[in-house]
């Protein structure tokens, strides 16, 4: 049985209670935060378990790496608390269930993971992937399963993740470039938190992009645009990768606008907030985020996660800001075209 590596004493000694005090979606003063958090730690019922928006941010806020969010998820599941409606949870669990059907390219020791997101098949082309394009894996069998953090189903992750890791290893992969940010977060944060060892080295695709752009430095035409960076929930599991955003932007001549909701203070795409908390909160979060981008003068909104893209792309287009995935932004800088484009309005009237 895999168990979360959580150290009670770190929380007992913590004065800041940043995990809750900094939360964007629940509002606690420090004393209440301490009380409520101790309830969570002690396995008691707490408002936190009911009101958590599952944004993952407390994983980043905790200065001790003590995995407060994973503990919340564990406690929610123990108590049968459903962050989202039960049938939606069921739907998610079923649709990503491994069924022995997957797609692999000509896999080599270094390979790309498209997770279970078809958008990466569209994005991963051109010179940035010229030495790896054929070496890819895709499907439920390689799906990182971290999404179940949103649904209080750590048990599903514990059950499936070891098998996913085994499936990847079976392909003979030694170095896995994770195009899905959440996969990298799963392998470098979630897996070690449960003592799961990896037989391969995960590489964040930002690092891959950065290295390739350095190789293609002579072909880069600085874009000279102002962009708002859309920070996603799984980025909270791996804040150490955030510097690549600025490193890449520096290489391709992009200005990351200063705005309220970036970096540690970022707002999520809120689509799972819509599912779990309802439209009012989700609309508010999305509106504040978009208004903030506009106020900062962003010309582009740069996405990391295809899930955020799907949730926000139409709304971003309506503001007049151009949505683009990070991979496509890099492509533009080397004279290639944007591959993942906003959908045509689906009307059929």
């Amino acid at each position, binding site marked *: 049985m895999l168990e979360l590596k959580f150290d009670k004493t770190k929380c007992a000694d913590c004065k800041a209670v940043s995990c809750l005090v900094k939360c964007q979606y629940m509002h606690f003063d420090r004393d209440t935060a301490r009380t409520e958090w101790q309830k969570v730690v002690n396995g008691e019922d707490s408002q936190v378990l009911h009101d958590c928006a599952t944004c993952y941010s407390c994983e980043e806020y905790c200065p001790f790496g003590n995995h407060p969010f994973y503990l919340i998820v564990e406690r929610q599941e123990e108590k049968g608390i*459903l962050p*989202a*409606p*039960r*049938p*939606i949870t*069921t*739907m998610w669990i*079923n*649709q990503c*269930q491994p*069924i022995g059907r997957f797609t692999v390219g000509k896999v080599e020791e270094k390979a790309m993971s498209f997770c279970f997101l078809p958008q990466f098949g569209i994005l991963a082309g051109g010179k940035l992937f010229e030495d790896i394009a054929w070496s890819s894996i895709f499907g439920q069998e390689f799906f990182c399963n971290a999404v179940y953090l949103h649904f209080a189903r750590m048990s599903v992750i514990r059950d499936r993740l070891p098998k996913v890791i085994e499936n990847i290893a079976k392909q003979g992969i030694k170095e896995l470039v994770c195009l899905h940010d959440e996969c990298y977060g799963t392998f470098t944060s979630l897996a070690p938190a449960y003592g799961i060892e990896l037989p391969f080295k995960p590489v964040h695709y930002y690092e891959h992009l950065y290295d390739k752009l350095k190789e293609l430095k002579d072909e880069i035409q600085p874009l000279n645009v102002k962009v708002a960076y859309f920070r996603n929930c799984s980025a909270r599991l791996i804040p150490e990768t955030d510097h690549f955003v600025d490193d890449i932007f520096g290489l391709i001549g992009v200005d990351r606008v200063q705005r309220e909701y970036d970096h540690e203070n970022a707002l999520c795409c809120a*689509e799972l907030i*819509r*599912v779990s908390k*309802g*439209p009012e909160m989700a609309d508010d979060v999305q509106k504040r985020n978009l208004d903030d981008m506009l106020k900062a003068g962003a010309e582009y909104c740069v996405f990391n996660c295809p899930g955020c893209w*799907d*949730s926000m*792309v*139409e709304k971003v287009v309506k503001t007049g800001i151009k949505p683009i995935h990070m991979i496509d932004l890099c492509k533009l800088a080397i004279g290639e075209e944007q591959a993942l484009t*906003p*959908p*045509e309005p*689906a*009307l*059929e*009237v």
Partner: protein
Amino acid sequence: MSDIYATLQEIVGKDYVSNQAEERYFYGRDPGLMPPHEPDYVVMPRTTEEVQEIIRLANKEKVAVVPKGAGLSLTGLVIPQIGGIVMDMKRMEGIEVNEAGRYVIVEGGVTHAALKSHLQKNYPHLRHSIPDSPPIATIVANAVIHGQGRLTQQRGFNSDMVSGLEVVLPTGEVCRIGSCAVSSYWFSKGPPMPDLSGLFLGWFGTTGVITRLGMKLYPCKKMRDVMLYITDRAELIPDIIRKLSHTEMMEDIVVSCAPLPLRFKGVFNMLVYITGDSEEELEFKRKMAWDALREYFESRDGGFMGVSPYMKPSLLAMPSKDTTRFADVSKGGGFEYSGPIAPIEKYPQYVKKLEELASKYNLFYSSAARVIDGGHSMMFSFSYTFNRADPDTMNRAKTALDEAAEFALDEGGVIWKPNLNEQRMVMERMDPNTLKLLGKIKQLLDPNGIMNPGNWEAK
């Protein structure tokens, strides 16, 4: 018989009549499970007068006539049970829109695709109720079987939207039904006069050939959107439908269930369609839908899912292509459904039976249920797939569908577009005096019994 062929050639021209094996083969079957039976002739009239002449000929020769649209009922309704003449209406393709009166007069062979295209091109602010059958389905045939479409939740059966008829009676006279009988306007199929459209709608061509049909058109809003609601409790669905339809703001509500793909397993998917002339109108309707179902959101028994903008085009497509995809799940391209019009309160029992029968006969199943007329009833489909190259799966599907039909009737439903066996089931349960009336009407209108014999044989 050669005299008949020659006379048909005289009526419609030699290019539009055939007694050749290829045509007889094709016109002797439909895509469902009913056994084929070939006609002796296939004829394609162009005008009402030609239809009249064909009917007069058939009376004279005592030959059966089966008027046919696209033949997509799946229940064999236009398979010529005793041979005779299949009258393919597709050459009658005139469309005349009365924009101010919001109706269209279509000839007997106009397809839903043709009307949709005509309206989009010439009257983009008007629309009609498009069924989820393939686009070649004809307006008239769909109305004759009491089809449903994208406006059925708001406006009732597509046949409820009929605003007038021109019919060639089985004895050859042309008859106008509705306001068009006394006026040049086709705004009503009956009221304020006796509504005689009931003599022809739902009769599967046994009481005459509809050569022209008035159909109401409705405002076409500038925007449409689809919301996806999921629950795992069948017993809540009647109340969920009641709450949604109470808003009087939903264009269409369709509930689906199937074991595959995996995201469907164990849950019920409800597609809720909304329309609006502005984003504000759409947003208001989204809010109304959310508010209507807040109770089940709070209890965690159901909720709205986000719909990817890349999924929306297929969900918003009219007609939906899902039916065609479903038809090939078992490979071999076969599916049929028994589609009772059912009390909404019976949804949980119907679903249970759907799954029981699938398990009993080892069939892949699916059901899509469309809410009718603001929640007065629903069409519940017991759909099973089969491989046309495998008679065993076809037999199992047929047996399952027969049982589904019996069950549906026992549970208070009425079978929609019933095949011959299902028609018998319906008539066995029918009030005896109603059945007698059915027979009297048929005898009165079609004394020689030439029109689509075998159907609604009320004896």
